[in-house]
């Protein structure tokens, strides 16, 4: 009852937030904008209370609620009882709404944004929040109560009982909620014809915040897949992974195209177009994932009604976004970029990133379309995505390495580019010599990664030597490019140099793996309150060094489900990775071992990317004038 009351009240407030700015009496008055801000805050408060009530219900294992009964177990840890709130469809939609309304409130508090713009943006955000309020109230209610209280809950899917997955959804949803702000800002900017430098600056602050959260969310998901699923990979081109990548690619392009708007007021159409596209892609993903059209861990219970409603929301906002885009008028004073100028490079970068997003989208939805139209079932996997996207990614990395050497509005390349070019060629030749088994594209990527590194460091050093004042945002940009170079190096080395073997090992048996001598000391049966564990104790020795590995198998009687807990130990930048298989009374245990020679570079790079985004965010808040 309490939950429903709070939800209804907050829906009403969202409705007011959406409608009132269109009422002349309100929007024209002095108190109008203040009222809308207050409404946004009140909505956030109401929906936040509903959310905390749901958390309370989960934490106290109140099994009279259907949602608790289906997704929680009284014996599980408190952390996972709470994360169970968003480990299911209904709760996760409520979480998304909480974050959306909180972010709207924060936006309402931005005093430096002109009052009328703030009000219009809050109106668009109100429309988004209202549509999801209706969705939750009508067909996705988390507060459904049972007539009969069951004795015990069904528990959360054991795969989701994990610290990284506890924070992964809130972080990704924050990123998606920030996408809504970008969408609203773009639509309002287009409608008012105000795509000026002030708009670009405001947009940049919010885009950077959004970029940080999306990057962190995707990295956490990838890390979880790496250690939890036991396949030893970190990116699978799984449909849902792809869909989360799409808005990231588009707002990375947006971030760069905003620099152009800020510095030379050209390419004005690109930025709002990208912002609107990113949000619409997020809505499309939500529809595809939650309608059950895609197979994934993220696909919760399938319900066609939900799919139709989400499709309706997506269609409405697509129409609204298109209407805003058609309002765009080119201005007379359109400054033209030169070929080989920085504007031209940034334009090319936008084009390439957008093409990658389009390629990934097509590969992800093509099987669905084919199945609906012809009934044929196909799958599009890693080979498609690597052959199509890698050439484009490579061009992006080349642009990144060359970017410090171009200047604004001039077709002039700095001389140092020839050093970096020569170095890139040398690095490529050296890589093909050292890594004879590698395909050409891998050597190209590694050379590109080294070149980005050199180019960025060279540029920073040159600026420092000239005793120029370097702005914080410039450090942020350099760090972002460096971290991408690190990610590329880690990704390439891991893809082509990892070692993977399966062994059969008996108690106190020994095997040789990648120079390590491994012995299986024992396998213990341990009873935990919620599941049973079989933990292997393995010692890996190489010379003096010895590493303990304890991969586990867990059996959850409630779900009749077995999960593997991998054990991963770092050796420098490398990981030694062990997965325990099943036992056979005659032959012993199956044991899978991986050697990931430079995987830590990937996680370090991802962490530095988020840090770089944060630095850029701080710089844009400070309002440092860009160079």
């Amino acid at each position, binding site marked *: 009852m309490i939950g429903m009351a709070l939800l209804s009240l907050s829906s009403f407030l969202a409705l007011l937030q959406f409608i009132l700015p269109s009422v002349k009496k309100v929007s024209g008055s002095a108190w109008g904008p203040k009222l809308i801000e207050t409404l946004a805050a009140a909505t956030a408060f109401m929906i936040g209370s509903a959310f905390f009530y749901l958390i309370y219900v989960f934490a106290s294992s109140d099994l009279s609620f259907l949602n608790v009964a289906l997704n929680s177990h009284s014996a599980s840890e408190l952390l996972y009882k709470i994360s169970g709130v968003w480990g299911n469809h209904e709760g996760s939609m409520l979480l998304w709404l909480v974050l959306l309304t909180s972010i709207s409130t924060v936006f309402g508090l931005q005093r430096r944004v002109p009052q009328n713009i703030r009000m219009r943006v809050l109106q668009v955000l109100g429309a988004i929040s209202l549509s999801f309020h209706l969705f939750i109230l009508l067909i996705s209610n988390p507060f459904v109560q049972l007539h009969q209280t069951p004795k015990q809950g069904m528990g959360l*899917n054991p*795969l989701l009982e994990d610290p990284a997955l506890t924070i992964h959804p809130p972080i990704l949803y924050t990123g998606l909620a920030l996408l809504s702000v970008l969408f609203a800002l773009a639509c309002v900017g287009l409608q008012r014809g105000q795509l000026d430098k002030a708009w670009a600056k405001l947009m940049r602050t919010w885009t950077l915040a959004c970029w940080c959260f999306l990057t962190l969310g995707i990295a956490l998901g990838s890390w979880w897949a790496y250690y939890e699923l*036991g396949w030893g990979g970190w990116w699978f081109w799984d449909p849902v992974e792809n869909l989360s990548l799409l808005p990231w690619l588009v707002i990375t392009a947006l971030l760069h195209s905003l620099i152009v708007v800020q510095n030379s007021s050209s390419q004005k159409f690109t930025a709002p177009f990208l912002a609107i596209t990113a949000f619409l892609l997020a809505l499309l993903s939500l529809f595809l994932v939650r309608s059950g059209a895609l*197979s*994934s*861990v993220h*696909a919760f*219970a399938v319900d066609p009604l939900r799919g139709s409603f989400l499709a309706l929301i997506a269609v409405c906002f697509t129409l609204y976004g298109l209407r805003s885009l058609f309002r765009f008028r080119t201005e007379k004073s*359109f400054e*033209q*970029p*030169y*070929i080989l100028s920085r504007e031209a490079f940034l*334009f*090319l970068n936008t*084009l*390439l990133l957008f*093409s990658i997003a*389009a*390629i990934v989208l*097509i*590969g992800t939805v*093509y099987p669905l379309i084919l199945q609906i139209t012809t009934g*044929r*079932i*196909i*799958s*599009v*996997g890693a*080979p*498609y995505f690597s*052959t*199509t996207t890698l*050439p*484009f990614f490579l061009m992006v990395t080349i642009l990144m390495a060359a970017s410090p050497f171009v200047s604004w509005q001039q077709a002039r390349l700095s001389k140092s580019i020839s050093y970096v070019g020569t170095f890139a060629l040398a690095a490529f030749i050296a890589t093909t010599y050292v890594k004879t088994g590698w395909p050409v594209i891998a050597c190209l990527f590694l050379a590109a990664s080294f070149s980005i590194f050199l180019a960025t460091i060279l540029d920073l050093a040159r600026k420092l030597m000239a005793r120029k004042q370097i702005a914080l945002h410039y450090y942020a940009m350099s760090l972002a490019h460096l971290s991408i170079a690190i990610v590329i190096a880690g990704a390439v080395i891991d893809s082509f140099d990892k070692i993977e073997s*399966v*062994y*059969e090992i008996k108690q106190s048996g020994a095997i040789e793996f990648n120079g390590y001598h491994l012995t299986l000391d024992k396998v213990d049966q341990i009873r935990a309150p919620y599941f049973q564990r079989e933990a292997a104790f393995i010692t890996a020795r190489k010379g003096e060094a010895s590493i303990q590995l304890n991969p586990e*198998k867990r059996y959850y009687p409630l*779900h*009749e*489900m*077995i*999960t*593997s807990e991998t054990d991963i130990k770092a050796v420098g930048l490398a990981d030694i990775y062990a*997965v325990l*298989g*099943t036992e*056979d009374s005659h*032959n012993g245990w*199956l044991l*899978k071992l991986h050697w990931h020679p430079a995987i830590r570079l990937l996680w370090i790079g991802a962490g530095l990317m988020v840090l770089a985004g944060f630095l850029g965010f701080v710089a844009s808040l400070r309002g440092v004038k860009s160079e």
Partner: protein
Amino acid sequence: MKAKTQRLWILIVSLLCFVAAIGLILSAFQENITFFYTPSDLKLKDLPTTQRIRMGGVVVKESVQRKGVQLTFQVTDFKEQLGVIFEGIPPDLFREGQGVVAEGYLKEPGLFKATTLLAKHDENYMPPELAQIQVPKE
């Protein structure tokens, strides 16, 4: 540079990018798509052993055998059966009497060499590929 030439360049570069993307997508779709078959489909077809496909059905009860790191089992769609061999650790949710999707190639008629096994994510979830298989009621 004149605005017109400039606009022309932008158009040319965008078109090139577009054509390259379409070309790559089409050629990748030619080579890198994996079709899904049931054991009955495979009975009727004569597929080259080089073609990577996905095959799925239900793991026949008491058919799973392990020899060293090699796993053999039978997959059925309740019309036809097909033997599968796989090296490695099967997914945690791989079980007899449950649905499985195997990716690999047909080694010889009646024997499928799987390089990857995909099972369900949780007990409530069935891969959509298997939705077409009618499980007879016991």
